């Protein structure tokens, strides 16, 4: 089971760890501030707290974080360590891994699964809603808020808790220096860092359009491209001036998401050539689908299938329909979709429209032995006011838990609330009645986005029409 916001970190061979129950040496793979992985194996006892925090802080700095970000990551690690050492995990073996050197540093805690109470990952954990006195779970919540991304997964009887902190980047200049217009494009190529920077500046200067949050910091995207997270193609004129571009990155194991294509005075043919370049690079790859949730006006519609739309509430209170597009990259071999009866008409209709061969399997009863508590993870896009919830664990309190999430998130100013249900994992379907009861409605299917397809719900309850505070 996994509740990740991005793919699980790669497993590291145990031989790379020093597994004594006492503080161990720090192993460094490569030069500081270059991509590297550092590891510590330690027993979960309070007396090793300063070792843990010292390791994380020094690793974060060595991997390129500045003081402020390194301190945030260290504080988050401290909270996690205390939570684990004081709880059921006390005296268990803990492995800590610091990865990074590019645009981010990630700390991964690995320990036996049975030692963790997953409920603490609910952002509505009782500790923060004011219902109770602060509890140990508050530490986890603090940790979650100190970092940019928090991911959780379980495998082989162990949990992996990964916290990532981004390097600080200056925001893109709102009034960039004037860039000379590009002439007619003659070549499609992979951009170097300078060309990518130029392309991103041009994208930022576009009069309108919804962009991924990190596009606001061009330096970060350039670093992410250097780390292989983003890839891009640009169309350059005879003087190598980029007049169009397209970016893409992996989303999970099976999908790639593209952004653009962005044209600056170029013909529509260039958009097709950019997409052909991307599709050529994905041929014979492990990607099975290409997603586009940030379409540019010049997106060639015949290259994609319209999945549907999501609502986005603009700062002035108006509601915008955001289309999502998809292109299957391989021949569809069919799949099963676990299906709650209350969303079956939607699924049947959408699968028929999209012509996907899906065997809809009705959900069996969740049975009498139901866990009392459910767990959700939340991925935030603060600039856009969006939160995406994903289920981590099914439990009998799903309705109360979801209701609390909606209430808390709306109180915190998040108006666009989504819930992503993996139709390839039967247990997730049990959230359906609670979702419908809390105002979520099925909006679209993302094919192959999870273990199976992903059904995206959007909360439409009390959708505000007035301007945000």
């Amino acid at each position, binding site marked *: 089971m996994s509740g990740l916001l991005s793919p699980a970190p790669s497993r590291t061979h145990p031989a790379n760890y020093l597994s004594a129950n006492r503080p161990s040496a720090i192993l460094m793979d490569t030069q500081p501030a270059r991509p590297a992985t550092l590891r510590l194996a330690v027993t979960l006892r309070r007396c090793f707290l300063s070792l843990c925090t010292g390791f994380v802080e020094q690793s974060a700095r060595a991997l390129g974080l500045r003081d402020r970000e390194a301190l945030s990551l260290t504080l988050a690690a401290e909270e996690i360590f205390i939570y684990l050492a004081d709880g059921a995990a006390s005296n268990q073996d803990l492995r800590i891994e610091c990865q990074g050197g590019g645009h981010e540093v990630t700390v991964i805690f690995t320990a036996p699964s049975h030692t963790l109470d997953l409920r603490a990952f609910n952002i509505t954990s009782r500790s923060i809603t004011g219902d109770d006195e602060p509890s140990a779970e508050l530490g986890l919540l603090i940790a979650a808020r100190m970092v940019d991304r928090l991911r959780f997964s379980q495998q*082989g009887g162990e949990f992996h808790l990964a916290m990532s902190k981004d390097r600080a980047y200056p925001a893109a200049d709102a009034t960039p220096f004037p860039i000379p217009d590009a002439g007619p494009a003659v070549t499609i190529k992979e951009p170097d860092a300078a060309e990518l920077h130029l392309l991103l500046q041009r994208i930022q200067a576009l009069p309108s359009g919804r962009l991924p949050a990190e596009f606001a910091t061009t330096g970060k995207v350039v670093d992410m491209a250097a780390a292989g997270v983003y890839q891009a193609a640009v169309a350059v004129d005879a003087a190598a001036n980029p007049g169009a571009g397209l970016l893409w990155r992996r989303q999970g194991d099976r999908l790639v998401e593209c952004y653009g294509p962005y044209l600056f005075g170029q013909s529509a043919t260039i958009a097709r050539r950019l997409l052909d370049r991307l599709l050529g690079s994905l041929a014979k790859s492990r990607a099975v689908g290409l997603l586009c949730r940030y379409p540019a006006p010049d997106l060639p519609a015949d290259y994609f299938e319209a999945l549907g739309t999501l609502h986005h509430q603009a700062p002035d209170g108006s509601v915008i329909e955001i289309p999502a597009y998809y292109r*299957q990259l391989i021949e569809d071999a069919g799949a099963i979709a676990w299906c709650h009866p209350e969303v079956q008409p939607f699924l049947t209709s959408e699968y028929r429209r999209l*012509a996907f061969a899906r065997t809809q399997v009705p959900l069996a009863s969740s049975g009498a032995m139901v866990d009392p508590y459910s767990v959700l993870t939340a991925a935030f896009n603060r600039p856009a006011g969006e939160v995406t919830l994903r289920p981590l664990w099914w439990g009998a309190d799903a309705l109360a838990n979801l209701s609390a999430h909606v209430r808390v998130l709306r109180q915190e100013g998040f108006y666009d609330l989504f819930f992503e249900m993996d139709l390839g994992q039967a247990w997730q379907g049990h959230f359906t009645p609670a979702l419908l009861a809390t105002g979520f409605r099925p909006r679209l299917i993302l094919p192959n986005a999870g273990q199976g397809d992903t059904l995206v719900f959007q909360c439409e309850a009390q959708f505000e029409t007035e301007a945000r505070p």
Partner: protein
Amino acid sequence: MNPPPLDRLLPAYVRGFESYIPSKPDAELMRLYGCAQLHRLNNNENVLGPPPAAQEAIRGFSPPLAALYPSGDAWHLRQRLANRFGKDPDQFLVGNGANEVIGFVIKAFCEPGDNIVTADKTFAVYEWFATFSGIEARLVPLRDHGFDDQGMLDAIDARTKVLFVCNPNNPTGTYWDRDRLSRFLERVAGERIVVLDEAYCEFVEADDFPDGMGLIDDYPNLVIFRTFSKMYGLAGLRIGYLAGSLDLVNAIRRTCIVYSVNALAQLAAVAAVDDDAHVARTRALVRESKGLLREEVTQLGLPYVAGEGNFMMIQLPMSDTLAYRRLLHQGFMIRSMTGFRFPNWIRVSLARLEVMEGFVAALRTLIAR
């Protein structure tokens, strides 16, 4: 017991390779897509089936013989091929489909650090086999839908061992004529192995199409691939072969898997190889179906590429993988071409006229949506 540490055990070039998932069996596809019939127009199979003598040989196969190993090096078939092409039997190596002989050649000549050169939009197995063997595949873009001879020569470096030319090319049907092929071989100057994959050569009716077998004596670095899967209708039995100069084939024999070709396939191939009437009948069928499909897609205003071979490529105003699904719902299975780096194109195998008429009707429905 813990699962094996695959990340550590698998070489990086295997870890990064995506396995090919073949399509499901007909009955399963029909269930999934809710169609009452299924016409496979995706694999360029011969709808006439094997030649009559090969069918007779298959029917006459005595089941108890299945207990015996086949000829380990397809002795009888190599005699028959030698007789047909005027060569020594040892100039032939027979494999479990032409796919296997691709592996023989790459394994014989390449080691990590070496490279092969071929086209970016051609039969994928040259690239696949090289890639998952740790060999770089240098892919030269097609020029006017055909192999770019100059581009391939430019891609050669000191570590280039093998150049693969698919003639006629799958999926475009373009081919190098005699002069162009000879010029290319002269410029390679015997320094590297040149593979001429002639899987579809028996379908070609053009007068200037080169006979690869006839060039072997002049170019001892030339390897010819042929198959019984296409024209001879034996795809289900998996049998193909390579031919070349004696020294070259003796070198490749070191990496040849003996006993990999089953007895029934060998029997059927021996019976099929001299049936020129079957070739003529198939060519007539393909000619007629290709004419019909060209006319119909022209009326629909769809661009197409119809070269040599029992297939055509058609460009659609939509994603080819979406077209694949919608056509399957109507009972027609085509090959989507995004994986061939031809986005929004489909490749259609040419079948009997009545099937092609049904396909055209399904295509009209698809376009009309």
